């Protein structure tokens, strides 16, 4: 029965101390947490750590579940915030330490054996600012609407639309450069 229960009900039950509901909820969404964490950080190990941290903090966070937003929106917000925390902790402003940057550096050190698609992805992501990366991770990676992504990131829908057009612009510029 639990398997069919909507997220929101499970969350409410878990917030009130229902152990089974909580277990179902985490099991159901671990993949989602991990996926977004990967899209935001670009590093598998980091995504795992981040996902673990989020799971560990989830019981406490659920106490503040109000059932107002969709559970997934709420959860995405938690993940995005945790990823921001992580970025900030990593010597904050140095570009090299922002996940994708690390990845890029490591890539340059390696004797380019990475699969080409992934290589391209990392290159593309590295050239985007953190805000654009977050937006892309949600809109393209998680297939959210611009409104949903705006809710998660705490910005207006218009801002998301603008950011996505900006991403398109960057990609176009990249393509031009590659074609050179």
């Amino acid at each position, binding site marked *: 029965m639990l398997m069919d229960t909507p997220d929101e009900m499970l969350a409410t039950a*878990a917030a*009130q101390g229902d*152990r089974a509901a*909580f*277990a179902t909820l*985490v*099991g159901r969404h*671990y*993949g989602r947490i*991990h*996926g977004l964490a*990967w*899209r935001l950080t670009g590093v*598998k190990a980091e*995504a*795992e750590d981040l*996902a*673990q941290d989020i*799971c*560990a*903090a*989830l*019981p*406490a*966070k659920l*106490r*503040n579940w*109000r*059932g*107002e*937003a969709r559970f997934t929106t709420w959860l995405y*917000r*938690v993940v995005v*915030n*945790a990823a*921001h*925390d*992580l970025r*900030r*902790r*990593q*010597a904050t402003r140095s*570009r090299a330490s922002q996940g994708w940057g690390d990845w890029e550096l490591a890539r340059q050190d390696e004797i380019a054996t990475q699969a080409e698609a*992934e290589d*391209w*992805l990392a290159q*593309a992501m590295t050239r985007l*600012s953190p*805000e654009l990366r977050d937006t*892309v991770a949600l809109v*393209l*990676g998680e297939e959210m609407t611009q409104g949903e992504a705006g809710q998660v990131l*705490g910005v207006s829908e218009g801002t998301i639309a603008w950011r996505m057009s900006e*991403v*398109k612009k960057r*990609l*176009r510029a990249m*393509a*031009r450069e590659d074609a*050179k």
Partner: protein
Amino acid sequence: MTDDFDDLKAALKAAPAPDADAKFRAMALAMKNFDALQGSPDPARSSEDRTDAAPLNGVRRMFKFLTSRPALAATTSVAALVVGIAVILPVNLRVTEPGTTTDKPETPVVEPDLRTETPDAAPENSTVASVEPAKPAEPPVTGLASGNDQPVLDAELVVDEVAEAEPAAPEAKVAAASEAGGEAAPGLVMDGTILAEDDAGAVMRERAAVEPEPSLSYLPAPAPEAVADTLSPPVENTEEYANDAPNPVKVTVEEPVSTFSIDVDTASYAVVRSSLTGGYLPDPAAVRVEEMINYFPYAYKAPTEAEAFSSTVSVMPTPWNPGTRLVTIGIQGALPAIGERPPLNLVFLIDTSGSMEDANKLPLLKQSLSLMLSELRPEDQVSIVTYAGSAGLVLPPTAAADRATILASLENLMAGGSTAGAEGLELAYQVAETMKAEGEVTRILLATDGDFNVGVSDPEGLEAYVAKKRETGTYLSVLCFGRGNLDDAVMQSLAQNGNGQAAYIDTLSEARKVLVDQLTGALFPIADDVKIQVEWNPATVAEYRLIGYETRSLRREDFNNDKVDAGEIGAGTQVTAIYEVTAPGSDALLNDPLRYGASATEGDPLGELGFLRLRWKAPGEDTSTLVETPISGTEGSSPETRFAAAIAGFGQLLQGSVYLGDWGWDQAIELALANRGDDPFGYRIEAVNLMRLAQSLSH
């Protein structure tokens, strides 16, 4: 393009599958915490208070024994630094001085995003409490635990508290608390970003990691980075540099044409000097070789009366590689008679944010600008716009003849507030617009310590704005002061997009060089959008490498496209670019010939090395002029070009370049000394001394 968009989507969708073990561990941990929470009557802790800390227990145990004074002092300083950040970062979050608001909750200006940190300080940090009986900061809130029945997510009350009691430096910071009557939402991150809390959390983590507490298990797992930060030297530095990896060696057959924009900035050299005289080697990313070379005046052949500039090519053996040659392209801008210069409209856009208070920032800036004032003519106009928190017009356009008024306004500038660069820039362009007149040169001089992005959600947008304003004919130059949060990347890009120069001013003599000695060059452009394109002859040049100009490279087709922006040359200034070229068959070739490729060694092997094309526009014009010169390979070198080569070597040594072989500091110093020539201002001998300093520092 849509393909790329779809590619990106597909690539992002293809997230690696989560590891089953990792999932198991994470779930087990989640359940453990869930159970722990059910049993505990305590309000939930913040996200920082994770129960799990296994990977770091060893580190913690180690820290338990680190109770010595230096260790504690080190922690304190790191904690203080982090608190400093907590005070600066939040844009609209009200953060008050330590200990002043514990009993005065305030309405936060922040949106609903929030998280509460319960004051763990009291019971758990018992060690701390016993050392320093700090008050355990009660949250000024009622209804702490009444979490679930208040359904208004957006109106959540939030208390952010970190009561700190450090043995060495007692500090208590209380961040915003919201209106009473709401309810606290312990341990929640609802949405948005929470800067102050996070940093405060980091402080707690770091303290937790070092303090000899017996009961640490409840504390958050300090992230490994945080521990590393604690141990690293407490140099808090948020500088960002604009640079790319050094240009690689190119094979002429594959890519015979090299295109770039000239660069008249000198900021990199001054930053390097400031680092070296400060006793440490500069960050390799801060070294832009072309800016170091272009810092120095060179005595190139002066242009004839009809020309805006002349170009001088010279070819000589490479000092660091006997198998290659250096091709130096020197451009000398014409120096119109000083008396005939057009009237000048200057808008000083001055950063008066709190960080400008240091002696080497605002005070130096005032001195620098007053130095410059005496060089202006009565018909020139000056106005001053400041930005900090809010932008303001401090001095409306005033004739330079009225020195007293201008000096008085300069003197009255005070540092304080945070930086809102974008607004200030808009105002400066508005003011500049009112000062414009036919035949006059209008320029904004932006003086800042680098922080330009508070309140600007999108730095690229700012640059686009500057690029758009460039069309109106107003130039923008950037003067950077002080170190520590130099945002070299933004400064570079603003100056490049604004048709201006970026200079870094660390001393009054540098201010003199930039603003007085080179006043004409820095302020009066004689050629806009100067682009250089060199086509190498594969018969005589098998490989080539452009030294520096990484941030200035252009696409081949951009050369003929007058819409594409490039650098400007000021009156009487010189710009130098150096290529290292390798002849076919040389031992110094780095790439082997292709087995199956077309070995296109057509052309005359005794002929020209290459063909130099220069494009430029007269200031204000839309169409460019093309100047073409063959590079015969027989052009001789001069002390000027040899000195430039020594500086190129200096820059590459600082970058740790792989192309220098055994060539080192001794050789660079020798070469620079031998070719310092007529050095009336002592710039070159200063460079030699910097090389000596760098040599000592790199041992």
